[in-house]
């Protein structure tokens, strides 16, 4: 049994706090990407026309097809990234991880043809004793902008490690 840790905060976290990553840039978003996403998240019902029918979408305030707000333009990158080196779950203190939640503010819709840039920083954390033992709540903030420099969304994601 390894010695009980006093903190799950690593030197890497201290070094990276508030350091914004180099922007990651998506491939151009296609109508097909949007349609498939909408079908998946509405399955088994037909998704709203706003996501796949240009004639209908032109009649709305959006004046054209837009992506569902939860759409991810960064899926299926090439070159295919290698899996990050993470310790196997449950092998010791601090090696268990969960998705704690997210909070997103939406500013500009994503449209076919858009190229989205994303930058992320570790912005905050706090640590406390929970029923899981010593537990670390870390918040990463991600900002997306489109090819015109317009802010698309700001998301804050909480990860939990214990």
């Amino acid at each position, binding site marked *: 049994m390894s010695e009980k840790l006093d903190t799950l905060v690593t030197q890497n976290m201290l070094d990276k706090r508030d350091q914004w990553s180099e922007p990651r840039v998506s491939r151009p978003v296609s109508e097909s990407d949007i349609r498939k996403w909408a079908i*998946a998240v509405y399955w*088994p019902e037909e998704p709203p026309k706003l996501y796949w029918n240009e004639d209908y979408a032109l009649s709305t*305030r959006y004046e054209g097809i837009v992506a569902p*707000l*939860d759409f991810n333009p960064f899926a*299926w990158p090439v070159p295919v990234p290698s899996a990050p080196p993470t310790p196997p*779950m449950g092998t010791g203190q601090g090696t268990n991880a969960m998705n704690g939640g997210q909070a997103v503010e939406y500013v500009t819709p994503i449209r076919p043809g858009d190229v989205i840039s994303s930058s992320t920083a570790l912005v905050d954390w706090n640590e406390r004793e929970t029923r899981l033992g010593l537990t670390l709540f870390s918040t990463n903030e991600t900002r997306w902008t489109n090819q015109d420099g317009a802010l698309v969304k700001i998301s804050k994601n909480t990860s939990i490690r214990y």
Partner: protein
Amino acid sequence: MANNVYWEDIEVGYEIPKWTRKTDLMHWNRYAAVNDEFIYIHMDDDAGRAGANEQGAFGMGNLRFAYLHNMLRDWAGDEAWVKAVGLQYRAINQKNDVLDCVGTVVAKRVENGEHLVDLEINVINQSGQGTAPGQATVVLPTRS
């Protein structure tokens, strides 16, 4: 143009129509396919159990996040704008769960010319357990 609701017609305390899905691998696999989210705990019962879920493979949090957006959009319509959505994951989405996305209007306000409603939202499973409580803000069209 598809306009479902106007800001003036919504009262605090109003419960928006719930949005329901029974979820299983058919839903999770389709979501994995579009989000490139192929993680063994969402695909394989042995991996799910190794990840501390006795019932096996379980659903993605991101898919419940999407379902809440669907609820808000289907209620508010295509002349509205979902401005913010946040949630916490409190319980696992097990295979064959019947998930009810629910929302209640808790405030109305006008800010920077936008007519806003704030909602408390959640994803409730068939046992009545709130699996993903959160908040949302929606900009609604006005009659004026």
